[in-house]
Every structure is written in structure tokens, then in C-alpha cells.
């Protein structure tokens, strides 16, 4: 019996008083998440009772809050964050998307040794940016156990907004994350209850006839790829959450409401909408973008989007996971007791040949589906490439035959939605200088779903050498996704300017769709040691690299 289960069971039988003092000391009850404002912050990482699924369990929290307190900073201030570890294991906090010296970045083993039990670590750095960000533990699977919260740095966009709310979306499980990971390792479809059945096949036979139905299946079956494998971890274990289970966001009709959506999930891409309303996207990953009006937004893990919505009355903030295994919603409007009907969930969509990297190709005379996407940037002169080590092996199952820039692809699950879905192609950061790249590296996102191994270039993190960036260079990074999963790639310490044709959008986390490629440009303007990784928590063990900036 592990400690968490023991405490859980003990509590149920009223035995907590019999535990040694050290075990119950500092175990708090959950408090509502509040904003902490200023330059001095005392953050206590500790055990806290929470009740999310209907039964009390222990979470790891900051100051007994889940999500952790919202930190409000001002650009130009020097902030001091004293983080004390009351757990009996090491911990850390990483400020996601924040530009700072690498020793303040909070990655154990790279930026600093981590925060040992009983210790206090003092983070101090100057705030150089504005917008919506977040922070989370970077130790083990702690992020999944409750250590994540919002950062809001005052900016000068949407100053006329009447209301301003953080909307943190996340996935909670009562299961220990080590157990979730073990389940995935032993049976990677453990949480997938959307698998193909014999009746899916008979329906296809009725639709296309036996020969074509068999032909369509052949590629998948030969490659042992599953078109129903949208997400590794699903509503089968997750409860999807908004803030501290907040049920109502107050706003009067006609008011301009700024919603700061942050996907603080471990594993869940959310599709968000406000039924009957347009959302005006004003910032992505904290950075102002040319405003764009949309109906739906897919928020990849670790991304943030700021939107303006003007409620006409009582409505909902409605989010469902990409694999359609669950949903979460909260009321938005004047009345807490309004009876707002739930929208129809979007239909489940399986993956297509496009997600296998065969977009625009023809197989045996059959079109694989999907138009050719033309998002190639103009590259008037060749960019020197630095080859990286690669290893064909058990961590590299699939090779995308024709990976494309699918920046205008809403992605699996939203392709049949006949509304305006935000895609990367809609985004542009105005006023940025887009220097021509000095150098390029290509990274293949690879994996093995059967064995549940994730890697870059076929080499998992624990067998890899650090990537080398050169201080002062403009580096072009191209990712080719040789897997059937989405991978939100996050670089610490430096911005990523995503190429969208010849325009760019500045982000800290870039989702790479299955079988697709993306290119981005990085101003290597930070020294020290950083990391670059997929932000899906259970992919991070392998799809992860240390980055060394050479001066």
C-alpha cells in the first residue's frame, strides 16, 4: 500500500490521529485559489486534501490551493519567490514561458539541484514580459498531482475589458501518476475506450463495399497503427476541471470579458467553445496577436490563449477533450442559477491517413484525403544544416512519408466541425523582426505506441547528448512528427517563432500534429543550460533534450 492510499484509507476510518506527527503535520484542506499580487511571494509546497472526483484524496499543492495561487506580476519588477518544500520528496517550480536566467528556470538536474525536503529555494528574477503564463513542478510526475497555477503579468492589450478571468483547464486523476504510467507501459491502450470494434468494420463494409473497406484497413493493419488512438490517457481516469472547480464566471450582458485560457493539463488537449458566441483571440502563449474571431479553440497542453467574449446573456465556457471522453463546463453570465442547456458534444473522429503523414498522396489510386497544404515559407538562400544523431530502433515505429506543414488543419476531432476553428494559420504576432535563419536542425518526433516509448530521432532522453545552440544565432528548428500523437513541444528560456508561410507567431509551446511538420525560428539570446521537450507528462521521460547554449 503506498503512502497516498494509506493516508486515504486511514482518513476514511478516522485513523489519521494515530499517524506519526510527521505524517499529518502540514496536511491541509483545500482553499479557494486566489491571486497573490506584488514582488514578494511565499509559496509552500505541501500535501492537501482535495475532493475532485467525489472522494477525498491527497494532492500536492502550493499553499493548499489547486490550482496553485495565481501570481500577478508587473513588467520591470524584480520578483522574489521563496518556495518551501514540505513534502518528503524533492520538488521544483518551473515558470513556464518566462524569460529568465537559467538558474531560476526550475528544472532539477539542469537549472539547479531541485528543492530538497524541508528546504527553501529563493527564485529571484526581473520580469521582462507581459501576458498570461503558468507555472508547475518539473519534478517527476508531480505536475499531475496538483502543482500547477497561473501567472498573469499586466499588459496593455484589452485595457477596456470589463472583467478579467483566468480559466485554468486541467486533468485530475485520483490514480497515482506512477500507476498511470505503469498502466501505459503494460498496456498502452489501457485508458482507450474508443477502440475499433467489429461493428465499425461492418459499417465501413456497408459504406464502401468489402474490397475498399479492406483496402482502407490494410495500411493501418500492416503498420500496426491504431486510428482510434487519439490520447493516451482519457476520461476513463481523468476528471476534467476548470479552476478550483469554479462553476460560474460572473459577467453582465454586453460586457467585454477577457478570459485567459491556460491548459495546465498533464495529457489533455482541450477543445473550447462558448456556445452562441464568438471568441476574439488577442494573445497566444502570453504574446499579443493580430486579433482573430473564432468559434472554437483547441488548446494544446501547456498553451494559453487570451480571448475577449461579450456575453449576450447566460452562456457556458464548455471544453471537451480531443478524444471526446469527457467534458467540463462553467457558467458565464449574470446568473449563477441560470439553466443553460449543454451543447451537443462534437462527434468522435478517428485519425486519418493525413495523420500518418500521407496527406496529398495517392495510394493505389485512392486519395488519402486532405488537400495539399501550402504553408512553405520562402527560403531564398540555403540554410546550413547541422545533422543530429539518429537511431533506427525500437523507439521509431513509423516514418511519415509526406509530412506537411498542416498549420491550417484544425486537427483530428475538429475537421468535421462546420464552424471557425482557430488554427495556427490564423495567428500572427505583429511587429516582430523575422531574421533569416543562420542554421537549421531537424528533429524527428518518434515513438513506439506498443511499448510506450517516446524519443527524438529514435533516441530517448536517457540515451541522448544535449543539443547545442550557439549564442547569438537565429536557429531554425524543423520537427517532423513520425508518430500518430500530437506533441506540444516546449523550449525553455527562449521564444519560438513559428513559421506560418512567411509570417511568424511567437510562442513558447508549439503543438506538432500527427504526421506533420513544423518549422520555427529561435533567437538564441539566453546563455546556460535549458531543456526542450514534449509537454505531455508521460512522454517527457523520453521525448526530451537538454539544450546547451555555447557562447
Amino acid at each position: 500500500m503506498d503512502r497516498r492510499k494509506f493516508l486515504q484509507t486511514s482518513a476514511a476510518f478516522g485513523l489519521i490521529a494515530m499517524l506519526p506527527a510527521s505524517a499529518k503535520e502540514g496536511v491541509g484542506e483545500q482553499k479557494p485559489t486566489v491571486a497573490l499580487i506584488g514582488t514578494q511571494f511565499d509559496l509552500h509546497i505541501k500535501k492537501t486534501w482535495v475532493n475532485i472526483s467525489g472522494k477525498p484524496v491527497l494532492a500536492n499543492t502550493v499553499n493548499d490551493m489547486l490550482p496553485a495561487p495565481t501570481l500577478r506580476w508587473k513588467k520591470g519588477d524584480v520578483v522574489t519567490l521563496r518556495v518551501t518544500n514540505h513534502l518528503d520528496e524533492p520538488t521544483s517550480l518551473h515558470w513556464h514561458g518566462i524569460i529568465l536566467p537559467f538558474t531560476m528556470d526550475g528544472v532539477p538536474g539542469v537549472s539547479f539541484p531541485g528543492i530538497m525536503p524541508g528546504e527553501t529555494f529563493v527564485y529571484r528574477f526581473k520580469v521582462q514580459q507581459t501576458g498570461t503564463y503558468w507555472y508547475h513542478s518539473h519534478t517527476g510526475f508531480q505536475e499531475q498531482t496538483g502543482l500547477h497555477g497561473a501567472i498573469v503579468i499586466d499588459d496593455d492589450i484589452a485595457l477596456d475589458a470589463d472583467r478579467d478571468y483566468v480559466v485554468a483547464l486541467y486533468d485530475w486523476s485520483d490514480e497515482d501518476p506512477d500507476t498511470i504510467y505503469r498502466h501505459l507501459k503494460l498496456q498502452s491502450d489501457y485508458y482507450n475506450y474508443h477502440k475499433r470494434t467489429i461493428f465499425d468494420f461492418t459499417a465501413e463494409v456497408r459504406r464502401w463495399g468489402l474490397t475498399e473497406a479492406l483496402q482502407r484497413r490494410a495500411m493501418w493493419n500492416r503498420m500496426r497503427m491504431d486510428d482510434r488512438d487519439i490520447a493516451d490517457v482519457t476520461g476513463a481516469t481523468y476528471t476534467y476541471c476548470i479552476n478550483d472547480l469554479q462553476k460560474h464566471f460572473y459577467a453582465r450582458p454586453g460586457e467585454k470579458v477577457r478570459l485567459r485560457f491556460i491548459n495546465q493539463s498533464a495529457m489533455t488537449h482541450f477543445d473550447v467553445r462558448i456556445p452562441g458566441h464568438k471568441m476574439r483571440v488577442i494573445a497566444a502563449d502570453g504574446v499579443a496577436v493580430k486579433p482573430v474571431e473564432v468559434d472554437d479553440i483547441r488548446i494544446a497542453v501547456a498553451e494559453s490563449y487570451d480571448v475577449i467574449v461579450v456575453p449576450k446573456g447566460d452562456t457556458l465556457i464548455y471544453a471537451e477533450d480531443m478524444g471526446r471522453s469527457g467534458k467540463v463546463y462553467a457558467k458565464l453570465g449574470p446568473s449563477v442559477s441560470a439553466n443553460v442547456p449543454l451543447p451537443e458534444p462534437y462527434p468522435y473522429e478517428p485519425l486519418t491517413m493525413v495523420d500518418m503523414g500521407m496527406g496529398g498522396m495517392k495510394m493505389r489510386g485512392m486519395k488519402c484525403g486532405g488537400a495539399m497544404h501550402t504553408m512553405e515559407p520562402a527560403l531564398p538562400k540555403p540554410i546550413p544544416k547541422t545533422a543530429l544523431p539518429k537511431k533506427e530502433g525500437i523507439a521509431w515505429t513509423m516514418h511519415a512519408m509526406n509530412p506537411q506543414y498542416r498549420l491550417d488543419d484544425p486537427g483530428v476531432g475538429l475537421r468535421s466541425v462546420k464552424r471557425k476553428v482557430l488554427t495556427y494559420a490564423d495567428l500572427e504576432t505583429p511587429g516582430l523582426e523575422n531574421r533569416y535563419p543562420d542554421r537549421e536542425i531537424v528533429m524527428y518526433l518518434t515513438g513506439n505506441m506498443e511499448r510506450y516509448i517516446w524519443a527524438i530521432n529514435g533516441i530517448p532522453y536517457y540515451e541522448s547528448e544535449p543539443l547545442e545552440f550557439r549564442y547569438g544565432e537565429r536557429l531554425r528548428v524543423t520537427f517532423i512528427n513520425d508518430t500518430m500523437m500530437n506533441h506540444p513541444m516546449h523550449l525553455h528560456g527562449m521564444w519560438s517563432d513559428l513559421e506560418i508561410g512567411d509570417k511568424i507567431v511567437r510562442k513558447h509551446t508549439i503543438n506538432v500534429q500527427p504526421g506533420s511538420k513544423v518549422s520555427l525560428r529561435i533567437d538564441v539570446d539566453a546563455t546556460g543550460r535549458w531543456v526542450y521537450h514534449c509537454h505531455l507528462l508521460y512522454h517527457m521521460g523520453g521525448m526530451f533534450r537538454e539544450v546547451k547554449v555555447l557562447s
Partner: protein
Amino acid sequence: MKNLLFMSIFAIALFAGGGDVLRYQVLFDRFELQKSGTKVWDVRAYVGYDANKLYIYSEGEDSSWQNELVLSHAISPFWDIQAGIEVDYEERSKSFGEITLSGLAPYWIETRTKLLFGQGAVGVDFDFEYDTLFTQRLVLTSRIESRWMSKSIEDIGMGGGLNYIETGFRLRYEIRREFAPYIGVSFTKNFGQTKQLVGEQSESSLLVGVRFWF
């Protein structure tokens, strides 16, 4: 001592968790009672990492069984090569060396193909399984297993040539992934010298069992 403990936790907790962690699984793939009264088991257990694992396989009924101890090494995304020993028992026990190709074949067929050598004989043994989903929890496993030996090993009832073909269909309901009761039917047919040695002609049996793992 305390520091050592912290350091070891620390080493594991670096960056994010996950990666290639040591793990184990014990799977009772078949654990059943056949209508004839025969009790059947088919268990596999491993401990290890992504690339290298130690496996124990045990398959048998009442008074005859095959146990294997093998080292398993991943050679490609879907395939493992395994090497070790198999001990067969039927009134007496005999040992064989084995080299096995285990993995997921195209079209999602779980396979184990085994080359046996020992007792002055060589043998080939294969075991294929295929799952058909009726619903997300109702799964039909079709299975075929067979063995061929180059010569008779009469002590343990193995004839030269084709020994037997065993097929089975088991319909399980996954109450949890880890626990699935099933009903099914199995057919066994002995051939050639084995038929003479063991005496059975062919046999079919209804069965009830439970598939579980931990």
C-alpha cells in the same frame, strides 16, 4: 543514509518522471475450468525494461505442463528475440533449450514462434492470438497453437512430426482491464505418433475462466 535515500529518489525524479522504469507484470491469460473437469492455466510474468526483460511462462493442465524461463531482447519496434530453457512435464520432465521470436505481427496478431532443441530432437512450436472487439469491454480472443517435433520423446508423450493443433475461442468481459471473466470453447486434435502415444483422438470442450493481471 537519509541523504543516500534522497539522492536515489532525486536520481529517479530528475526532470520529469517516466522513461525506462523497471516494471513487472503477471498475466493469467487463461485460468479456466473445462467441461471435462480439466483445469488449465497459461501464465506469463516478466520483470525488466523496454529492451530487456526476464520472462517466465507457464502453461499446462492438471498433470502436464510446460514452464519456460527466457531472456527477452527487443530487436525491432514490434519484435523480441527470446532465449532460455523450457521444461516439459508429463509424468516425467524433460528440458529443452529454446530460441523464440515473440511479437506483434501485421494485422495485430500476437505471435510466439519457438525453436526447441534438446533430448536429441528439434521442435517448432507456435502460438498465435487475435482479439476481436464486440464492444469496448467484450472481446473475443481466437487462438491457435501447435507443435512439431523431429522425433519422438516418448517419456513425455511427444511424438515425432506434428504433435497437435489446439484452437480456442474465448469471449471475455473486461470488468476492469485487469480482470475479465470469460467463457469459451477449445478444440484439441492430436496427430501421428503423438496420437498413438497419448491415445486421444480429438477433444472439444466448453470452458469458463478468468483472465487477470497485476
